[in-house]
């Protein structure tokens, strides 16, 4: 029982980080149809900006985090503006965009490595007081991450369901041509989508690095696989599906780590992803692309 609860606790933290990342990733796919496999590289670059601002420039952690978020937003916006949109205008096969994204990922990840070097970095702060309830142990940092996740998910829900921009994003995702006929400047909506999803990406990178504590330039390279698993579980392009998928994958990986072998904890995510791709590529619930 205690193994179960402590694993569940870890799982909730993993899920919190994963949910922030996956929601941003899936929004990009929903609104612009780009499977942005360079997402992990933007995450880790943002994480390093936060780290630099916090540890070297001695800024308050929250201020530094804003720097990381801004990095993710701006980098994603530029990526779309100067790479993905020009390629998409040429009406290429979706696979070409994926290859381009992988190229961008190499540039982003190893460009960063060229600057910061191949060594590991760590936050030297304490994790804060340890709290435990119902048999689960959390550090203050971990609780903060879960809190951030809940707030962000709430904001995304509010954005998508209650704001003019969010509804325009969903309309653009569902039927871009009709959205334009209704007066929606879809180009603007797409730019905003990249800014918002990029901000989520930056935030995800920051909390990812804080949560692992020790990280290097290539740490997020494989994280994209967990995000893909979460996204395909909930249905590609579905924001709420992504939240649910992240929760499932996050908890499932940590539970399998607790009960089997921690070295294989990601295996379950891979298996889920391959099974979804093979048998239900539009997710457990979805039959078509919707946010």
């Amino acid at each position, binding site marked *: 029982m205690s193994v179960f609860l402590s694993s569940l606790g870890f799982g909730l933290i993993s899920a919190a980080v994963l949910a922030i990342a996956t929601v941003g990733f899936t929004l990009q796919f929903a609104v612009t149809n780009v*499977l942005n*496999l360079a997402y992990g590289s933007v995450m880790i670059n943002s994480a390093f900006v936060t780290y630099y601002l916090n540890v070297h420039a001695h800024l308050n952690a929250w201020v530094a985090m804003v720097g990381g978020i801004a990095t993710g937003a701006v980098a994603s916006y530029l990526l779309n503006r100067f*790479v993905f949109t*020009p*390629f998409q205008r040429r009406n290429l*096969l*979706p*696979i*070409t*965009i*994926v*290859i*381009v994204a*992988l*190229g*961008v*990922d*190499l*540039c*982003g*990840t*190893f*460009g960063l*490595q*060229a600057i910061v*070097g*191949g*060594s590991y970095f760590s936050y030297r702060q304490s994790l804060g007081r340890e709290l435990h309830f119902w048999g689960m142990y959390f550090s203050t940092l971990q609780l903060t991450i879960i809190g951030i996740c809940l707030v962000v998910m709430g904001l995304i829900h509010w954005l998508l369901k209650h704001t003019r921009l969010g509804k325009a994003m969903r309309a653009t995702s569902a039927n871009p041509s009709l959205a334009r006929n209704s007066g929606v400047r879809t180009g603007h909506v797409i730019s905003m989508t990249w800014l918002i999803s990029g901000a989520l990406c930056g935030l995800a990178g920051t909390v990812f690095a804080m949560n692992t504590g020790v990280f290097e*330039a290539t740490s997020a390279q*494989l994280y994209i*696989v967990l995000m*893909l698993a979460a996204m395909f579980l909930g249905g590609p392009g579905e924001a709420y599906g992504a939240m649910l998928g992240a929760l499932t994958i996050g908890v499932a990986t940590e539970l399998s780590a607790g009960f089997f*072998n921690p*070295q*294989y904890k*990601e*295996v379950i995510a*891979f*298996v889920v*992803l*391959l099974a979804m*791709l*093979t048998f239900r*590529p539009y997710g457990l619930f979805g*039959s078509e692309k919707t946010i």
Partner: protein
Amino acid sequence: MSAILFYLATLIVYGAVDSMACLALNVQFGFAGLSNFGFIIFQAGGAYVAAILSMGNWHKSNGGFQQYVLGWHLVWPLPWIGAALFGGLLAIPFTLLVGKRLRGDFAAVGLLVSAVLLNQLVNNFVPLFNGAAGISIVPAPFQGKWDPQGLGYQFAYGGVAVVLCVLVYFLLRRVTESPYGRSLRAMRDNDVVADALGKNVQVQRTSMLILGGMIAGLSGAILVGFINLWSPGAWGYAETIVLFAAIIVGGAGNHKGAVLGALLVPLGFEEATRFIPPLSNPALVPALEWVAIGLLIILFLWFRPDGILPERRRILSGSKSVPVTTPPGVESDSLINLGNLDQMDFRQLLRIEGDTNDHGTILSCTNLTRAFHGVTVVSDVSIEVQRGRLTGLIGPNGAGKSTTLAMLAGTLAPTSGTIHYEGRDITSMPSNERAKSGMVRTFQLASEFKKLTVLENLVSAIPRQSGDSLPGALRGRRFWGREDGENIERAKEMLEGFGLSQYADNYAGGLSGGQRRLVEIMRALLAEPKVLLLDEPMAGVHPNLAHKIGDQLMALVKSGMTILMVEHELSIMDAFCDPVIVLAEGRVLAQGTMSELRAMKEVVEAYLVG
């Protein structure tokens, strides 16, 4: 001096290994359109198998400091053969992922993820692969007899590697420059259409995945026998991206391009950076190497998407003339003249058999129904098509004409109902088999194979080509060459009949709308249909040309062919079709000649009122 020679020998081996890998991946990606992002799995798998087959039992060798399975201590070349076989076997489970229903980029993601997953497993599962440490002291072939560190041995090794690479080059060329290779490229350009012309795309994809896997396995074996190490860290998924970069740079769909790319990208990068003096930051050079590969991919895809050596256009007609450029637009189509069709003997050219006076039912469907997401588009349609007649299928927009045709051809599965063809129930027969048994369809939207020439488009459709299978292709031109020559002549005759000879060697994607229609009709005819299913063949065709086509369809029917045609241009129906079936709101409304139909109140209402 000898240091340079040793280095040269190493370069030769690496160059051969990378070239083999790129050649194999290029056949999958550039020819068959398979984005195998998990390619490295097959290379790594082959390398591992070669290693453990050549090593002795792990308990006994070197004090058992590393764990692995098998350890059969086989003599060369058995480990290499085992590696190739294993690479092929490994491909089989992945054929599930490249099934025809999955979007190309989703399948690619699946393969990429498989590569990552297997790497993780290998890194952590010690008994099978000795974990992250990998396997070392892998014996070189004939280690006991010759000194692997000797210069002679190293050059001999390089020589064997190059010979194998050359063999692979010619083997793959044999495959791709055959009728089978034509089918692979057709599948790459449009898999749904290739399927409708009788190509079994599932089998084609599986074959290419296995063939590529075998070559990848062999290339891994060559490498591991030379460097005597097998470490999972060297087989990360990113290595596949390097190979993709090589192919994009060299030129997808071109074997020489693949070799050039292999020499420039994996080999060139690896080696060029060796000469950079060590820096304070040891990660800098490898990191910049990756950045350069990323940039190379992006810049090439933007500025030179076809690579340094683009795919070659295949001239089948034998003429050396420069291809003609075509003026686009519907207007120019009115000027197309259908050549000397009157003199064509369709029965002979299209191998039509049977009695032209037999008008029995050849194709029928009963209570055919189809619903999309709960909306019924076709309901309870029962139709009989008679041998040797041109049956028309008309109806207002949304009447379910194209859906009915697609169900008859097998492109869509019916929700309920049955289809009978020549007395057999074919309701669950896959579309490519229906095509092989003589039911060939055309498509409403442009469906030419864009990067095949017009002549290749036509020849690709001819059934029962002895070179249109992997074994047939491997038997070489001597086996299929003469027959292919005859097929090309048949296609040329057809092309001449339709007055498009001068476009024989043009890429079909560059033709005008009307010309592409003609190519599609000719291609369908060369598939030797007993029943030809035409989906709006005159859409977007100038009326003058439409009537010329109609005349030819009549000639075909008189020669004994059966045609079912969906068409909205009713003047065509008037002139050529008997009988005409009217669909409205997913149901059969009436059947008869056009003049009979025009007298029926409900038909007029359906068209004018709804």
